């Protein structure tokens, strides 16, 4: 396959769909380091990008990879990297830098078993809290978790768009099952997808502020070499990008970093909700577990038993308001996760003591099956 097969229907692997999604979004620069189970993303882009004159490089480690794409993004290239758990840990340094300096980029983390080297070829969802809180200091996070191959394609494009729109890193987190599974994917026609053009300032050179305080908290970003000369630093900085320790400037920066996300939750929130209103028992899940939940819902429907499914596609920022609104009145919420309990704390945080929040955790490198979910639902009914 060469390039994006616009309009065609094909059998595609999840990681391949991520790579093709990046090409569809107009990726200019990829830097990465080999790691299972994400390597196909780098391999496919290594083959495809030179064919269209786009830049690809394999760096010496994951810290260098994320550093390189930050540099690339600041120099005007739409940039992405792909990794898995151990590499994701190393990338936290660069991720924090990109949050602080408000540099758009896409980081794909195909989740495998951890901690440490863990289970390199097997599935887990152990990085969801790291994706939110992994880098030091308070920082914004936008994280998308696809559940099928088609979403690997569409959410990669979405990740590039959100990165531009919010001027911040966006993390795409398929788990290993989603990254490695093959499924039918019908590609849209070429004009059908929406790709946000990178913003550029239109003010005179001397008026440009790299961190202008606009109504949305995000201002158009100039690039190195464009004629707008500016300074970028990971030190806390003023609106021009120069280091500051003045209390009002520090507070202004920190508040803007937070509010540019929290004031526009409506743009970011994306949930799949099935039969929640008419059910007393709801499965709250994300990523590959959602597939098992859908299958379990069907099995239970045949037994005339109702179970609802709530699945956030955007897992961070967490859909606080909707979860509270829809789930706080339920009897039981089952939270199946491929970890020892991470997102369950968010569900517990948002529901009253009267709601039973039941964990179903698997961390042996295998999927939670529909049968496990059916059994869990029947047990609480």
């Amino acid at each position, binding site marked *: 396959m060469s390039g994006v097969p616009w309009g065609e229907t094909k059998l595609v692997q999840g990681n391949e769909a991520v790579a093709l999604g990046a090409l569809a979004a107009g990726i200019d620069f990829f830097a990465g380091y080999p790691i299972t189970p994400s390597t196909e993303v780098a391999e496919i882009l290594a083959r495809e990008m030179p064919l269209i*004159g786009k*830049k690809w490089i394999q760096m*010496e480690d994951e810290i260098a990879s994320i*550093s390189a794409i*930050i540099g690339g*993004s600041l*120099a005007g290239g739409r940039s992405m990297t792909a990794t898995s758990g151990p590499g994701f840990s190393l990338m936290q340094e660069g991720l924090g830098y990109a949050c602080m300096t408000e540099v758009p980029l896409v980081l794909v983390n195909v989740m495998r078993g951890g901690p440490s080297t863990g289970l390199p070829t097997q599935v887990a969802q152990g990085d969801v809290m790291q994706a939110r809180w992994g880098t030091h200091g308070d920082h914004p996070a936008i994280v998308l978790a696809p559940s099928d191959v088609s979403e690997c394609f569409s959410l990669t494009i979405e990740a590039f768009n959100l990165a531009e729109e919010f001027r911040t890193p966006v993390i795409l987190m398929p788990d290993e099952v989603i990254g490695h599974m093959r499924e039918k994917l019908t590609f849209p026609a070429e004009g059908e997808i929406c790709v946000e053009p990178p913003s550029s300032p239109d003010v005179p050179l001397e008026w440009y502020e790299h961190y202008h305080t606009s109504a949305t908290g995000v201002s158009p970003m100039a690039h190195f*070499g464009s004629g707008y*000369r500016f300074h*970028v630093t990971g030190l806390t900085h003023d609106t021009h990008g120069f280091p500051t320790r003045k209390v009002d400037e520090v507070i202004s920066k920190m508040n803007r970093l937070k509010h540019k996300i929290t004031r526009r939750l409506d743009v970011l929130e994306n949930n799949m909700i099935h039969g929640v209103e008419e059910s007393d028992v709801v499965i709250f899940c994300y990523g590959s577990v959602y597939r098992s939940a859908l299958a379990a819902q069907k099995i239970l429907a045949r037994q005339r038993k109702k179970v609802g499914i709530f699945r956030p596609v955007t897992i961070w920022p967490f859909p606080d308001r909707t979860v509270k609104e829809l789930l706080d009145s339920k009897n039981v919420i089952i939270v199946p996760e491929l970890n020892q309990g991470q997102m369950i704390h968010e569900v517990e945080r948002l529901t009253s003591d009267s709601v039973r929040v039941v964990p179903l955790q698997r961390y042996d490198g295998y999927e939670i099956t529909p049968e496990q979910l059916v059994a869990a639902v029947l047990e609480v009914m």
Partner: protein
Amino acid sequence: MPARLPYSYKYLRSKKKFPHVWCPGCGIGIVMGSIIRAIDSLGWELDDILMVSGIGCTSRMPVYVDFNTLHTTHGRALAFGTGAKMANPKLKVLAVMGDGDSMAIGGNHIIHAARRNMDITAIIVNNNNYGMTGGQFSPTTPQGAKTATTPYGMIEPDFDVCKLTEAAGANFVARGDVYHVIELDGIIKKALSGSGFRVVETLSPCPTNFGRANKQGDAVNMMELLRDETINIAQASKLPKEKTQGKTVRGIFVDRDGMGYTERYQKLCDRVSPGVKK
């Protein structure tokens, strides 16, 4: 030097960002002056230059100069610079780093930038210690030297910045110091005007930390040490060995014409997909 004044207005963010953070007697400002004079003599546009740095005293330099400037995380200047150069090959990328920044935490990045022959000029200001954090030992601290973390003397052997980067494949490797400034201007100009990975190690005093810990006197004494304990490579070749013993050699050690990474990548694109413009 009144003749130097016009540089201040053109190249420095003179109204915004001074006074600078460097201690009295520090040599980093002299290196910055050399870089500015070298760039001025090359006639480069400010818009085309990207100065990138890591963390440390030297890495504060980008804030003062009116180029495109990028102050990154510790050790990563070359990785950020690599990405910027790839995304926009028109940028002339200049990385300024200290000895700890480039040789310890950034050691992996510098050997691979040299191996790739990435089109970046790396100016490494070597003051033999981590100045900003209070004078701990670095990979270039000489054996026996006292620092905040070697109170009984340094027991580890030190890196030779020039030999290391030469062996790793850099196109251009040179050493200068902040006493022999005219020579340094010339070395930096030559480095900037080439392609591929270019390294200029610049010896520079840190009287506040390293000098005080090792009883090297004040800033003037430390400058005199550079005068007396270094020797130009051309002079050294004319003298008998015993006269150059113990002296650090200055000058250009490597000046190769290997193809830089940017050109090599473009050639790859041309080969696999003729007709496509970068």
